[in-house]
Structure formats: structure tokens, C-alpha cells
């Protein structure tokens, strides 16, 4: 295991530490790095322009997460309602698209949402004659792309606790006088909430740092943090600021993962061993 740990240290820990360090240096006059200490890059994160992009990213990621969780939880619930022997196949089919090329899956949405794309064609078929609706290069298109790409995560994360859910819990709730909706709200949802939390954190973290989806479906004007990082390294040539942006992403990710870990710990199903009898 030593070579593997060395590999991860040399090619992940060290580069990430390097990025952290880079955030504290100045940008050279002609790009490049000037090795003198500064906090300016981190201060710049709070500049209204960049803070705005953070907020946009958080909003888009938040909406995409919410939609993916609602639809994905429902899908996972539906899979657990199917006959036991068909569930593995359904789950496999739900996750299969996730394993195909991310770029291509996103590109498929360009085909659907283009000015003369499939959606417009569909509307025409039903007699629509006006201007083609502008669907592509909008925030909505980005959200659709993110939901499309990451929903399988939610299905997977929610299926695990739902399939382990003792069906007698729901029956007990009915037996004690609760209707179907109350049973869902007070028993099924709370008991499976850690799966929802795990799926949601994954979708949110991957969405807020996303680069491809906003670049392809959001068009040139639409920017999220990922695109900003990209630009600092490839066009604006301000590596120290790009490094600070990356660290901010990592910080958001760590906070969310910590919160989720706490939630899981407090959540159900974590046997702490029976107390004295």
C-alpha cells in the first residue's frame, strides 16, 4: 500500500498544497507568479463581481440539487416498490448513463435545446409557429444538464437506505393510526434522510465546481466558479487568484462533507450497541 499512498501524496496532496500556497502570492506583471506574500487573492473573493459568481454558482447548484433530490428520491422509492428480483436491473439501468461520457451527455442536451433542436421540432409538430424558444445558453439549461448528469447519484444514495428500510416500520405507523402521507413524513423520510444528505452533498459539490456544463449549456456569458478558475489559468493568466478560488471550492466541499458526516452519525441505523439490560 506504500506505493499507492506515495502516489496520492505526490500527485494529489502536494499539488493541492502547492495551490494553497500559490493563493498567497502575487500575480506577476506579465502573468507568472511573484513570490511575495499577500492576502489580496482571498480578499478578492469577496469583491462583488466574484462574490456574485459564487452566489450564482450556489444558486444553480442548489436548485439542481433540490430537483435531483426530489426526482431521484421518488425514483429510488419506486425501484424499492418493484419486485425484489427486478430491483438490481432497474438500479443498474438508472445508473448506467452516469458511466457514459459526461461531455457527450451534456452535448445531447445541446441537440435537444438548440434553436432548431428537438424541443422546438416537437413544439412545431403540435402546430407552434412562432420564434423558436431560447432554451439553450440559459441558467435553466445549465440546471437541466446538472440534474440530468448527477441524478443517478441521488438514486443510488437514496436506494441504499430505502431498500434496507424495514417494511414493518411503515406498517407499524399505519397500525398506530397514521395515514400514508403522515407515515411518509414522520417515519420513512426521517429514517432515510442520511441517504438524501449523502446524495445531495455529492450533487451540490460536483455542481458548484462544475466547468463543462456551464461552458457548454450556459454559453459564453454564463459563468460559474469552475469557469472562473479555468479562465484564471488559461486566459487571464492569474494563477494566484485561480488558486484562491480553488481553495474556496475545497473549503465549501469540506464544510458540507463535515455537516453530512455529522448528520449520518446522528442518523438512524447506526447501532451503538445495546445499553445495559
Amino acid at each position, binding site marked *: *500500500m506504500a*506505493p*499507492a499512498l506515495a*502516489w*496520492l501524496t505526490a*500527485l*494529489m496532496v502536494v*499539488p*493541492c498544497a*502547492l*495551490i494553497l500556497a*500559490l493563493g498567497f502570492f502575487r500575480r506577476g506583471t506579465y502573468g507568472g507568479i511573484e513570490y511575495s506574500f499577500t492576502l489580496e487573492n482571498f480578499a478578492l473573493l469577496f469583491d462583488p463581481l466574484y462574490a456574485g459568481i459564487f452566489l450564482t454558482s450556489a444558486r444553480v447548484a442548489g436548485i439542481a440539487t433540490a430537483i435531483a433530490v426530489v*426526482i*431521484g428520491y*421518488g*425514483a429510488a422509492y*419506486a*425501484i424499492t*416498490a418493484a419486485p425484489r428480483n427486478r430491483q*438490481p436491473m*432497474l438500479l*443498474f*439501468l*438508472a*445508473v*448506467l*448513463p452516469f*458511466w*457514459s*461520457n459526461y*461531455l*457527450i*451527455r451534456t*452535448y*445531447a*442536451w445541446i*441537440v435537444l435545446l438548440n434553436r*432548431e433542436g*428537438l424541443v422546438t*421540432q416537437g413544439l412545431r409538430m403540435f402546430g407552434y409557429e412562432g420564434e423558436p424558444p431560447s432554451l439553450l445558453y440559459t441558467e435553466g439549461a445549465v440546471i437541466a444538464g446538472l440534474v440530468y448528469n448527477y*441524478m443517478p447519484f441521488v438514486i*443510488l444514495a437514496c436506494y*441504499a437506505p430505502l431498500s434496507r428500510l424495514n*417494511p414493518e416500520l411503515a406498517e407499524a405507523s*399505519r397500525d398506530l393510526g397514521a395515514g*400514508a402521507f403522515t407515515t411518509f413524513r414522520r417515519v420513512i423520510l426521517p429514517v432515510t434522510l442520511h441517504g438524501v444528505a449523502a446524495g445531495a452533498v*455529492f450533487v451540490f*459539490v460536483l455542481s458548484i465546481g*462544475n*466547468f*463543462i456544463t456551464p*461552458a457548454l449549456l450556459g454559453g459564453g456569458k454564463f459563468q460559474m466558479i*469552475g469557469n472562473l478558475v479555468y479562465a484564471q*489559468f488559461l486566459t487571464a493568466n492569474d494563477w494566484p487568484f*485561480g*488558486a484562491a478560488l*480553488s481553495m474556496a*471550492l*475545497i473549503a465549501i466541499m469540506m464544510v458540507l*462533507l463535515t455537516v453530512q458526516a455529522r448528520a449520518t452519525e446522528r442518523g438512524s441505523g447506526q447501532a451503538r450497541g445495546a445499553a445495559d439490560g
Partner: protein
Amino acid sequence: MAERSLGVRRALGIHLALVFAFLYIPIAVLAALSFNEGGLPTAWTGFSTKWYTALLGNAEILGAAWNTLFVGLVSTLIATVLGTSLALGIETRARKGGAIEALVFAPMIIPDIVLAIALLSFFSLLNVPMGLHTIIVSHVVFNLAFVSAVVRARLKTFDWSVTEASRDLGGGAVITFRRVTLPLILPAVIAGALLAFTLSVDEFIIAFFTAGAGRDSTTLPMQIYAMIRFGVTPEVNALAVVVILVSVAAVTLAHRLNRGIVAP
């Protein structure tokens, strides 16, 4: 289940059907389009395989495909050896350290743009010339994490007493590994390798940042990105279908070998 009324069950069924439609219609549309003679989504002008033929005559695409295959195979090979040894190392340790867990989990959750620029900075500050080799060592980072996760999942249900039985019957450590442990975990190792290969073949951002400037280290996803970004040619639809089929084949095989790995 009895407590679910017929209405609820029907609603769940419809919901699931809609979700599957949502997941598969975009891909199905691409596939249909790749056989459209005219190549444009605006009108169906007849069935044709000419875009697939065009792929075979496109030297750029073939070169990128070769690069992708090379990167995928080499990085998978390295990652499989390292990832398996990592999994065995972690699972046979009496005390599992939180730091190691975090280190192994990190590559799966770090936004790839962050890992990509970190590696770019790292290589350029060390003045490492970049090309396919830098893509390979970078892909190994997340691939080895993946292989180790798959193998560890298998080891969680591994009955270690069989290795003790082998030692008891006179097998040394190496023989025990080669004749007992490895054959038992092999399906998981191969499944992990297949998934790692799929990830590597599809990976874009890290390859894009660590490929260096030369055109000769372009991989297929980089080629596809360029085609989508700067003028869509109908060939991209055919290419997309081929790439998806490769992934689906690898993932299905992995699923066959080791149920519960792709979708536990």
C-alpha cells in the same frame, strides 16, 4: 407490499418510467441522429452509416482514439496494481486511520477542475514536460482510488480464515496470495479495472490541463470538446455513440463480474 395502495404504486411506476425517459431520451436522440443522412436534427433525410464511415477516415479522430486507449490502458494497469495493494493494506490493518480514509476518498470528491489546475501548476513549476505521460500519472490518482474502493467493498465480505487455512497447510505468504487471496478477489479487481478504464477514457478536464501544448497528446474527450465547442460536425454524433457503447460494454461487464459494484 400491502401498505402501498394501488394508486400509490401506479403513481410510483409512472414516475419511474418518466425518469427513465428523461435519462435515456437524450442519448437515444443522439443515436438516431448519428444515422441521419443529412446529419442535422432539423429533418430526417434517410438512414445512412456514412458518418461512421467518415470517422474511420478522420486521421485526427483516429489519432485521438489511439491516445485515449493508450492512456486508459496504461493508467488502468498502474492503478489496478496500486489500488489493489492499497485495498489489501487498508483492510488487513487492525486500526484504520482517518487520515488514510480521507486521502483515499479525496480523489473521488475533489472537483476535477481543482485537481486539474493543481496538477498543471505542479508539473509546470517542476518544469516537467507535459504530454500523454502526465495525463497517465494524473489519471492514476483517481483511478487507483476507484479500484481500491471496489476491491475494499469485496474484502469487507472476505472470509480471512481461508488465508489462515492456506498458511496452516504450509503455504507461504506469496503462495497464499497467489493461490488463495487473488483468485477470490479477482472478479472485483477486474471489475474495478474496467470501471477505472471507463473513467479514464471519458475523462476530459484533467487530461485537458495536463496534456501540454502539443496536438499529438489530444485525447478523444478533448477532441469531442473541440468539435462541440467550435462548430458541430455530424461526425460527432457517430463518435458519441461509439464512445458510449464502449463505456456501456465495459460497465456491463464489470456489473456481470461483480454484482453490486456499479449499482450496489
